[in-house]
């Protein structure tokens, strides 16, 4: 009798532990509210394009999606690169597209141990805003006269799925060179 009860207890405990973990995961993932709430984002949709109000949404999107790995000050840590070099990449030929591609499809490179996951699930508004946020923070200054991103720039590049390695090949200034590895 005791042994039977003990078996039932084991299964019950195992099930409750998995349930508890799922609850934890749900609570954590439900924090991504903004990313899924297209309705909230609609009010940021620029009517004339130059009126794109990206600052607030960019800051929020950075905190929800990027801060984990790239750090609250874009400093990076361990296997995750810092973002201080983003403006230089943006200014290089093809850099403007490369930054969008790596967000849409993710990036795997020999330079860093951890891969960049795809952020393609984010709406155009949020992606454009967060790119602009990075380009104006963490020591980055966009080149004078350069136009920052608007949602239409992201939409234009949404196409067939690329692999994270293909994205790496698009990197301005060569895919192998370990530039930008200034913070570790």
């Amino acid at each position, binding site marked *: 009798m005791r042994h039977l009860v003990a078996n039932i207890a084991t299964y019950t405990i195992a099930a409750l*532990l998995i349930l508890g973990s799922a609850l*934890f995961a749900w609570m954590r993932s439900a924090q991504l509210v903004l990313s899924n709430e297209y309705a909230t984002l609609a009010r940021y949709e620029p009517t004339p394009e130059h009126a794109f109000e990206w600052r607030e949404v960019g800051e929020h999107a950075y905190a929800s999606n990027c801060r984990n790995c790239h750090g609250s000050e874009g400093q990076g840590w361990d296997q995750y690169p810092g973002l201080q070099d983003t403006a230089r990449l943006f200014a290089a030929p093809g850099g403007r597209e490369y930054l969008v591609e790596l967000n849409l499809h993710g990036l795997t490179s020999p330079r860093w*141990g*951890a*891969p960049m996951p795809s952020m393609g699930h984010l709406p155009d508004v949020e992606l454009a805003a967060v790119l602009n946020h990075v380009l104006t923070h963490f020591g980055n200054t966009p080149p004078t006269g350069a136009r920052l991103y608007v949602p239409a720039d992201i939409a234009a590049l949404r196409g067939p799925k690329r692999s994270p390695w293909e994205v790496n090949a698009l990197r301005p200034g060569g895919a192998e060179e370990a530039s930008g590895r200034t913070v570790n």
Partner: protein
Amino acid sequence: MNRVMSGFFWISLYLLVVLVPVFLMLIPPAPSGRSFWLELSVALGFVGLTQIAVQFVLIARFKRITAPYGIDIILQYHRQIAMVAVSLVLAHPLIIVIDNPSRLKLLNPLSGNWASRAAMMSVLTLVILVVSSQFRERLKINYERWRLLHLLLGVAAIVFAQLHVSMAGLYTNTPWKHAIWVVTSAAMVMLVIYLRVLRPAWQRNYRWRVAEVRPERGSTHSLVLEPVGDHGMRFDPGQFAWIKLEGSPFTLEEHPFSFSSSAERSDRLEFGIKSLGDFTRRIGDVPPGTRAYLDGPHGAFSIDRYPAVGYVFIAGGVGITPILSFLRTMADRKDHRPITLFYADNDWDSVAFREALAELEEKLDLHCVYVLKEPAEDWKGERGFLTGEVLDRHLPKEKLARFFFICGPPPMMTAAHEALQERGVPEARVHLEKFNLA
């Protein structure tokens, strides 16, 4: 607190202990959330780690924890929940890699980071730990060596897992959150030190000596222990103790044996031991005066836990020892509740303790039924195996009111248990003692 309440208390406590540290990680400032599968994988990793930590407490033989269940259940639970914990731990990297196959790079020790290397060491030790435990006999690892290996691997697994948590560091983003994990892991390592160094040292003050090793029938011996000094061991009839014989209290070699003496005497303990393995074969040569250390009493197989108007005891071979303790205790207490004893053995000459049982039959309301597998020609009692038909011939009419205690080799216990189920004996009235503790 009654046993059911106490049982629920400990199960709830287990869930609480395992889940609360994980949920404390949600208290702000928490890192921003990620996708469901990634977060699930993290939660499973943490839950696996706390479960491994609790494993150290389960095997510590703390009587307050084991008493409501019986330590055999706790050890069974230790084995079962270990599988759950290891599965959850393995699910953690698996989900992470499936979520984004590029992360396979982290599994390469050359391209990963120290956090991932520590994680892989921890998983590796866990896998060796599980394999060496599941296949100990097939791998021909002797019990004492395995115990040492198990101990070292367990400590290594938790230390590497803690290093992984500390270095990955995402959820331990404030000092107090980090402290929860570091302190827990450190406490488990301390517990091992307590169990293997401090408790044996304390055991030295409670030394026993072998008073006598009495040969019994059927290559069985009665090991008689007396305390050195002014202490004793109060136990319930049917319980058992781990015995360390010869050597120091720090040895990893110890063996569980059931008391066969009356629970009314705490200063002269007897254990029935049959020659079955290396240690038990030598028991006859142990000289009187040999030092012994005891860890006990343990176990829940006792008539004192389950009071009834009468009992049926079913013993196979050396399984008679806890039952002998029941009978001797009842005789000392002048307890006249009716008892039927079924005792299966090979032949009449090898029936251990049959003289003692004959004496007890006179003092108690006891009816003994011997079932012999290979009896002599002139044997008039039951022959062959202990089957349902044998039970039918001798079970008292009011059998449903009685409690059944079965102890013997596993196939015999299973057969007897099934026979009782077929005869409509409620499950709650059948109690089994499984001997495979190791």
